[in-house]
Each structure stands twice: as C-alpha cells, then as structure tokens.
C-alpha cells in the first residue's frame, strides 16, 4: 500500500528532521494552501527585514499536515528562501524544490507544487499587508 521506498535520502532527511517547523508570532505574511479533503495542508509564516530599500526573508516557518513529500517539500522550501531577497524567493519553482530534494516520485510531484504555491501566496500576503 505504500511507495515510500521511492523517496530519496534527502526527502527522508527532511521527514526525519524538518527544518523551520513551527509558527512565527505576528508574522509579516501568512498563507495556507491545500485542504483536509485533498489531504495536504501547508501553512507558511513569513518575517521580512527591510534594509536600504531591499526586502529580505528574515525568517520563515512552516506547519504541514500531510504525507512525507508534503513535509519534505515544505521543509525544503523554507531552507531555500531563508535569507534570500524577496524578489529571488518569489522565483522559486516547484521543479527547483523537487530537484533540491533529489527528485520526487511521480505521484508526489503535486506536493512540490503545493509548496511553491504556499510560498507565492505568503509573499503576496506580505505585499498586500504592506500596501495597506
């Protein structure tokens, strides 16, 4: 009933030791994607630091209810954007997340899409809050 034999060592590493798991109190941006029916829910919390007119990801944390790939992709994407300029972070694609994890089983590719969507959404949330 399972295909977890197909997970890479990197995926397993993130499942075992998720990075940046938890929440940020009073975040500058927050976003949730997925739902209980489809199975995976990811929530991202974002803290942005502004210096000399440049916006940088100071901190990012995730909370995920989902399978191994959902946990690994959300964990991985936080490590990929932490410290990056917001404009660079916004460019991260689902392929980049999957590649960073040493690939994902075909049936799990949608998890990296979910992570990439969560990231886009949390950045959008930050921009919206900042505008108003």
């Amino acid at each position, binding site marked *: *009933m*399972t295909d*977890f034999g197909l997970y890479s060592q990197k995926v397993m590493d993130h499942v075992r030791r998720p990075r940046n*798991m938890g929440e940020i109190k009073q975040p500058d941006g927050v976003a949730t994607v997925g739902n209980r029916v489809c*199975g995976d829910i990811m929530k991202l919390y974002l803290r942005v630091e502004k210096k000399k007119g440049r916006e940088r990801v100071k901190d990012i944390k995730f*909370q995920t*209810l989902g*399978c191994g790939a959902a*946990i690994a992709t959300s964990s991985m994407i936080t490590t990929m954007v932490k410290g990056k300029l917001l404009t660079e972070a916004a460019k991260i694609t689902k392929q980049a997340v999957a590649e960073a994890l040493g690939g994902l089983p075909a*049936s799990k590719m949608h998890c990296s899409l979910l992570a990439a969507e969560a990231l886009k959404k949390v950045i959008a949330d930050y921009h919206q809050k900042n505008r108003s």
Partner: protein
Amino acid sequence: MKKVYLDNAATTPVDPEVLKAMLPYLKGSFGNPSSVHSWGQQARRAIEKARDQVADVLGTKSRRILFTSGATESINFAHKGLIEAIIRKDKRLKPHIITSSIEHKAVLETCQHLEKKGLVEVTYLPVDKKSLIEIEELEKAIRPETVLVSLIYVNNEVGTIQPIKEIGQRLAEISRKRKKKIYFHTDATQAVQYLDCRVGWLGVDLLSLSGHKLYAPKGVGALYIRQGTSLIRQQDGGGQEHRLRAGTENVASIVGLGRAMTLVSQHQATNSKKVARLKEKLVKGVLEIPKIELTGHPYQSAPHIASFVVQEAEGEAILLRLSDQGVAASSGSACTSGLLQPSHVLMAMGVPVEKAHGSLRFSLSKNTTQKEVDYLLKVLPGVIKQLRAMAPKGV
C-alpha cells in the same frame, strides 16, 4: 535498532520449515514434473503431495486444487474462466455478477475488465459502517442472469469477516429453487491461516488463496474448483494443471505452499487464540491515544488485522516515522496508494475522506510477540504527537 514487523497482511516471512521442505527442489531435485525420467517423477510426486496437503486443509479432493502464481491469478482465472465458459454455452446470455464494494482490487478490476468488454453486468454491493454486507441486499440483487457471487472472506484492509457460510447456504437454496446455479467464489487470502476454510462447510464453488500470506514464498497460490464447475483456461501452452493452466510448474514454491498449509492448519487454533489476544492488547493500547478510531467490525474480525483512522496526522507520514523507529505498518491513505485515491474500502464504509487520510493498519502473525506490541505502543504515541505538533492548528 529494534525491528518490529506488523505488516503481515501485506506479506509474511517464509517459515523455516517451509524453506526446508522447498530446498531440495531448488537444488538436486530440479526436474520438470512433465518429464518421464526419475527427475521428472520426483518433481511430479512432490507437486501431487503438495496438492494433497492443500486439499486436506480445504476439505476436498486433490483433483479439485489448481496451483497458480498467487491469489490474483486464481481470482482472474476463476472469474474470467467461468464467464467465458458460461457465455460459450449460452451465447445469448449476458451474465450478471454480484460482488462487494470492499473486495480486493484483484476481484474489482477483474469484474471491471469483464464489464468493459461488454461481457457481463456487475452489481457492487454496499457495506454498512462496520464493513459487513447484508444478505438481504445480496438476495435483492439477484437477477435471472446472475451466475456468480464473489465475496472476500476476510477483508485485507480492515479484517472484517463476511458471513460466507450463511451466504453459501442461502445461495445453494436459491440455486435449487430456481433450478439454475449461482456459482460462489470467495477470496480467502487473509482467512486461510485463521479461519475454517473447508469448502464444503463454506458452500463455495471457487476459493482463491496465496502462499505468501501464510509463510510460503511469493509467487505461488491455489484455486479450488468444485467438481462440475467448468472454466475456460486463460493461459495456453501445455497440458499442465489438468489442462487448466499451461506452463511448467513452480515446483519448489508449490512444495512450500503445501507444507505451509499443513503447518497453519495444525496450529490454527492455538495461533488464532494467541494472535487475537495480542491484537486485543494492541487495539486497547492504540485507542488510548486521543482522536483515533478503530475501523472495521469490532468483533467479527480476523485475529491478525487491526485498522484505525488517526486524526490530524497523515497515514504515510506515520508509516515513515514508525519505520524510523523500526516498526513496519501499512496505510490506506491516498498518499500511499500511488493513485492519490483513499482506500476504496474505507470509502465504501462511509469513512469521510478527511479521516481516511489518517488510515493506519497493523497486521500480526504467529511470530508476533507481546514485547513487540509493547514496543509499538511505546513509540506510536510519540510519532503521532510529533506529527500533530507539525500540523497547522484549527484547519
């Protein structure tokens, strides 16, 4: 690290005695059972002895047992072979099959295949919340064209035992009354080790089983075919297995299946009791964790399968974390299916999709110990707690 294997409904280890019986046929006694010389005769005798052993446990004559590559093949052959034979006799008939919505995919997909080819019509009986089918519903589904009823004896995901014997009796009465036979097939794969599978007692015409669920190797199984049940063979190319299944026999594995059948039958009473006791402890311990429910029937259930749904943690994630702790289990969650569909069994039972994502199954064996169950109960609460801590709150 401690290793605790609680996935015996997926497959079991080969019993050392089974392996011992098989080894000569992987070494010196390698003959082809169809050959006339002494090598061939030796292999032939070994196969026929295994056939006797299987027949003994099923309470039938050796002649009624066919060896296959496993229950999946047995099931495919039983359904396709029977329908082909019936259509050959009556070309105007579009036969009707009744099965359930909680069958193994071997039955479901075989029925769907026959449906797609336009050969049959199929009724998939619903089940109640405890995964039992209702005999009344079954009777209502019978039509003049109904030729086959196919029901799983013990469900592989939740362990529920269907009342095969009662259904067998009822079908025999109905067949007699209407003077037209309704054949009865049961997939007994998960039942053979723990339940009475004598075919006369059950009232079945066809029974499928697999070796690797009862300490024989993978790749071998059997089909019981009641006398007078004609099947058109699905694999051509030789006269083996009473001309019903072509291909050189898997001698060593067949010998292993025979030995395994004898062993499980000899120890059935003691092993059933022992495994049931352990399962009771396991279920009690697991249910102490908050927000976990037992799925399947609370007592009309095979002794080796305990199935749950866990809230606020996903099945595959639980399996991965448990595996890290040395525990092997299984799940019917969408994420473990490769098809992203939650278990059709849980869906048929009316388990909401949200809950089915947290499906978790433990399956025990005669080798499972109290210490192993204790170890699981020690590590499982932590695994679930960690995953719940990871999940977003209030969604």
